[in-house]
């Protein structure tokens, strides 16, 4: 029964992402929201950190938060998935439980 991990802080400022990756199950998903969306940028140390998770097709980013921060699609790592608030709600149903990391 996989978990959806919700990360809301920048991995350049906080350790939420690193801790999440340490204790997450391989079937789990991650959604990056708010300041965490900077994790989307390709060719960065963070992109390297989440590379394997992206390959599983379970790395999601909240599109309105990317747009608000001016992050363009061409600068994003390939294989990530963009969702709006409706998609976010659907993910919380697809996965069995959620865990927020700040």
């Amino acid at each position, binding site marked *: 029964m996989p978990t959806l991990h*919700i990360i809301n802080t920048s991995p350049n400022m906080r350790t939420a992402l690193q801790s999440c990756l340490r204790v997450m199950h391989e079937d789990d998903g991650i959604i990056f929201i*708010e300041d965490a969306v900077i994790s989307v940028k390709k060719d960065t140390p963070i992109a390297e950190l989440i590379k394997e998770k992206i390959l599983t097709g379970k790395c999601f980013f909240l599109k309105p938060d990317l747009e608000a921060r001016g992050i363009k699609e061409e600068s994003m790592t390939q294989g990530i998935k963009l969702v*709006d608030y*409706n998609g*976010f*709600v*659907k993910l919380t149903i697809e996965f069995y439980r*959620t865990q*927020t990391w700040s």
Partner: protein
Amino acid sequence: MKFTIIVNNAPYLSQSSDTACKFAQALLEQGHELVQVFFYFDGVLNALDNSEPPQDDRDVIENWSKLAEENELDLIICSSAALRRGVSDKLAVGFKSDSLGRFSKAVTLSDRVISFGT
């Protein structure tokens, strides 16, 4: 599906309350049930009734009040967290102060409990 949402952060200093409100709106539009929105930690400051943000900014508290009125929501602030922060009698429209016991009942009735912030 039945949801409980927890809002842990104060409005404005953090985006969490905005995101939670948009998430709540989306789940209601999809026909799901929102059993309770529970405000904890500094999240209880979302219930302050005399907030007046500048005209070119969004009104976080009013957004919650509107959502509550349109959907007959339970916006519950934790009474002990509120007391500690001086949030007491006059609350914004739609908000009520109640115990962790009220929250515990919402947990009982919910399929998903989603936290925003802290």
